[in-house]
């Protein structure tokens, strides 16, 4: 069950204008750098991107925004970048802001074949507008729907040729749920190994959820907030 493709260009070759993509990562941590570069190069447009954040001006999804490839962002927190703000205010870019846990759980719902979930996040706020509210045991919850994404693009630390993935530290974040939630899932990994080299007990995303995998290159892994203490 070899799912290896040579590189990001092959992995994303059938991503078309107007499609909906899930992109893993939290901030700039655990983002699919290679695929983003390939998407920028390919120049595919009118995309709806489901991603917790929108990158910064010159890195991550910010690179796609700069090229005006994104029609709509579905995120929980954006605006670390000026170009994003400009496009938003000019009406070129549409943004749907949703609570972070709702975002994560709607991805999980897609991957677990659940059409909708209930969450209390946003009850009584403008997030609840137009949504079904339901009371369970005296507490109110919103009905939130699973996502319907054409592709999920994730980044893992290690992966094998069957598509099994292992993430590193907090670079895990949204990647596992998105890997499960896409109709077609592309994984880029820092270390691609033959099937059998990963401990089956350590795998975070089983290969059944992954359709294409490749060994990524030249990871920059930019740090957004470098905070340190003195020795």
């Amino acid at each position, binding site marked *: 069950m070899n799912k290896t493709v040579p590189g990001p260009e092959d992995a994303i070759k059938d991503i078309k204008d107007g499609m909906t993509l899930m992109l893993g990562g939290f901030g700039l941590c655990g983002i699919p750098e290679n695929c983003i570069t390939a998407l920028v190069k390919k120049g595919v447009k009118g995309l709806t991107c489901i991603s917790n954040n929108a990158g910064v001006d010159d890195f991550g999804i910010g690179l796609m925004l700069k090229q005006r490839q994104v029609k709509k962002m579905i995120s929980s927190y954006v605006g670390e970048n000026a170009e994003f703000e400009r496009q938003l205010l000019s009406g070129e870019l549409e943004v749907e802001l949703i609570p972070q846990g709702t975002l994560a759980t709607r991805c999980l719902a897609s991957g677990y074949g659940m059409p909708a979930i209930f969450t209390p996040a946003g009850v009584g706020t403008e997030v609840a507008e137009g949504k079904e509210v339901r009371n369970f045991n005296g507490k109110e919850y919103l009905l939130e729907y699973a996502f319907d994404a054409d592709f999920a693009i994730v980044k893992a630390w290690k992966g094998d040729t069957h598509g099994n993935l292992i993430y590193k530290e907090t670079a*895990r974040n949204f990647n596992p749920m998105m890997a499960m939630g896409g109709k077609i899932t592309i994984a880029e990994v820092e270390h691609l190994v033959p099937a059998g080299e990963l401990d089956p007990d350590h795998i975070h995303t089983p290969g059944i959820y992954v359709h294409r995998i490749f060994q990524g290159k030249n990871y920059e892994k930019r740090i957004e907030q470098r905070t340190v203490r003195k020795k």
Partner: protein
Amino acid sequence: MLDKEGIAKRIAKEVKNGYYVNLGIGIPTLVANYIPKDLDVILQSENGLLGMGPFPFEGEEDPDLINAGKQTITTLPGSAFFDSAMSFGMIRARKVDLTILGAMEVSDTGDIANWKIPGKMVKGMGGAMDLVASAKNIIVAMQHVNKAGESKLLPKCTLPLTGVKCVKKIVTELAVLDVTDKGFRLLERAPGISVEQIKNATKGKLVVEGEIPEMKID
């Protein structure tokens, strides 16, 4: 009157042994510095970590290891990583004992507004709406009045809400207050602050019963 560090110090006294705590960005982050060392407390970072440690030493930053504020951090013995679905799962399931976060406004019924100012660029709610909707105990760290001198403790929030009827306690530069059925209940005064000053700075319903002690922080 307390400075930010003072507010953080006072809030740190609310942290009990054995607590799992989620700290928001801003003043709440400072609370970690004042939790007594003899308490066994574990910090949850909602991007997917239990057991958040201090900032790394210079040169030891790991880009794969950040907190919910996107700052480089470290782990501690007994840390665990998990995905964001599980992270908000444990938040929704009320496994986190205490959530501390900032606010722009709080109402005397416990509503909170801290994510959006109409007319300004909206960055998003991040995990705040999930946290306030589910936390069993929420303490808000905030300034009692805004820069224009207007009270941020209101009968009704004027800004778009983050959550309703969720705030349990508020610590400001002037006071410690509980949110009760009858409104804000004044518990403690900041050093040198009078009940009258707090009354003047509080637009929402304020309950003052008996002698109000001055808070002890050291």
